[in-house]
């Protein structure tokens, strides 16, 4: 069960991340959301314009030293699903829009490419955010932006439950494997009780984990900030600068102009 171990480790890594940078998690959250909204708002044939948005991803990856390749590998299943959904467009829209060096480019191809890119960009942006500030950071940022504590707690607990669930799967899998040597996976007949027991056990454990959080002062409401932190000038600058860039990329068709130049 190396895969499970790997998944648990990855979740824990995200859990442990505390941003050491001086940029507020809330600022990062705002920029990430603005990025996603701008990305999604591009027209369905505006592939060239959309490519401009990659600037944010490239700069963030370089600046924060994030390996995009590793990210893509980790996210391969999600990305594959995105690609699959996007490629449906290929079959709907067969009008030829223009010729690229003699090859016809249909509306379907263009919109499929645009849709896939939109998906990949937003998923990557979310991954970067998780990588940079971690789940607790996101929850803290949400609190700071005025989301009710109850809602944030539910999010945090769902996250914890996911980890608990995976650990429980591993434990039961090992126990099962021990007594069913030479067998790959769980046999059909055992699946029902395996799943039922898993649910009960993981819920039980999630409950005790929650109790342990309560006993250590988690009041189910506020996720406390280290005392006395105001929005730093750096964070404000970070948000303002990126918002300007997004607006510029969205409304001034830099890449499209370049594209025109190239095509004509």
């Amino acid at each position: 069960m190396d895969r499970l171990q790997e998944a648990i480790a990855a979740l824990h890594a995200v859990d442990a991340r505390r941003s050491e940078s001086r940029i507020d998690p809330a600022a990062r959250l705002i920029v990430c959301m603005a990025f996603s909204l701008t990305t999604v708002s591009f027209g369905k044939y505006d592939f060239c314009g959309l490519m401009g948005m990659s600037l944010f991803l490239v700069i963030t990856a370089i600046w924060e030293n994030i390996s995009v390749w590793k990210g893509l590998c980790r996210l391969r299943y999600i990305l594959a699903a995105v690609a699959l959904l996007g490629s449906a467009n290929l079959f709907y829209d067969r009008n030829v829009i223009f010729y690229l060096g003699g090859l016809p480019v249909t509306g379907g191809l263009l919109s499929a490419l645009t849709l896939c890119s939109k998906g990949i960009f937003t998923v990557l942006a979310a991954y970067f955010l998780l990588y940079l500030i971690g789940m607790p950071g996101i929850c803290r940022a949400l609190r700071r932006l005025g989301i009710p504590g109850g809602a944030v707690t539910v999010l945090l607990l769902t996250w914890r439950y996911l980890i608990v669930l995976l650990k429980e799967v591993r434990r039961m899998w090992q126990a099962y494997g021990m007594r069913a040597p030479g067998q790959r996976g769980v046999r059909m007949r055992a699946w029902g009780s395996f799943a039922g027991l898993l649910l009960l056990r993981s819920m039980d454990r999630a409950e005790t984990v929650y109790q342990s959080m309560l006993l250590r002062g988690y009041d189910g409401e506020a996720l406390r900030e280290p005392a006395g932190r105001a929005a730093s000038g750096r964070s404000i600058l970070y948000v303002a600068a990126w918002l300007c860039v997004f607006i510029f990329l969205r409304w001034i068709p830099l890449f499209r102009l370049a594209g025109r130049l190239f095509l004509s």
Partner: protein
Amino acid sequence: MSVIKAEHLTFSYDGAEEVLSDVSFALEPEETVGLIGANGVGKSTLLKILVGLLPGYRGTVEVGGLTVDKKHIRQIRELAGYVFQDSDSQLFLSTVYEDVAFGPRNYGYAEAEVDRRVMDALRQVHMEGLRDRQIYRMSGGQKKLASIATILSMEPQIILLDEPSGALDPRNRKNLIRVIREMKGTKIIASHDLDMVWDTCERTLLLSGGRLIRDGRTKEILADEALLQTHGLELPLSLSHG
């Protein structure tokens, strides 16, 4: 004034069978008390009631002069720390440091103070070297010591330890006994490791069939072979040899 007081405490999980019936005792500040009894007599249940995890008991229970109920729950939990029998329930964050820092951070201390508390707690259980260790890569014994540290970092006045010596090898067990002796505050240690109780507790409470059978000096209760045997326990090894 007693720090912990229970009077006519009765409890059942689902209204059917009484797990605890008519239990009364009181603890003075700085006392270390052993809570012994066979498997399933309600040791963990009693400790959980004291920290307000199991509401709906009958009788009176007071911790630090406060009645254990919804109104006082936050104050009581700041006063009293409970170390779970099963460390995997206690530890849920990724690294030792993060988990030990969870409590102090919840109480809103500044990062410097959090750091001091974490390092203090780790020093007390002799685990400074493992501060950045990932928890799922630790042995059962290490996890036990780490989960004790998660409570020590909150600097509680009352510490409730549930089966602390389970999963510990002889050396770590000795280490734990030293840790318990060095810990300040009022302590209740629920265990069927009678040797450890013998080494750490002045006073012992013996539970059986949901009732408090004996409350007295450890030296007397643990030396009473007939009493222990009727209630499913055996003499501590250190006594049975000599």
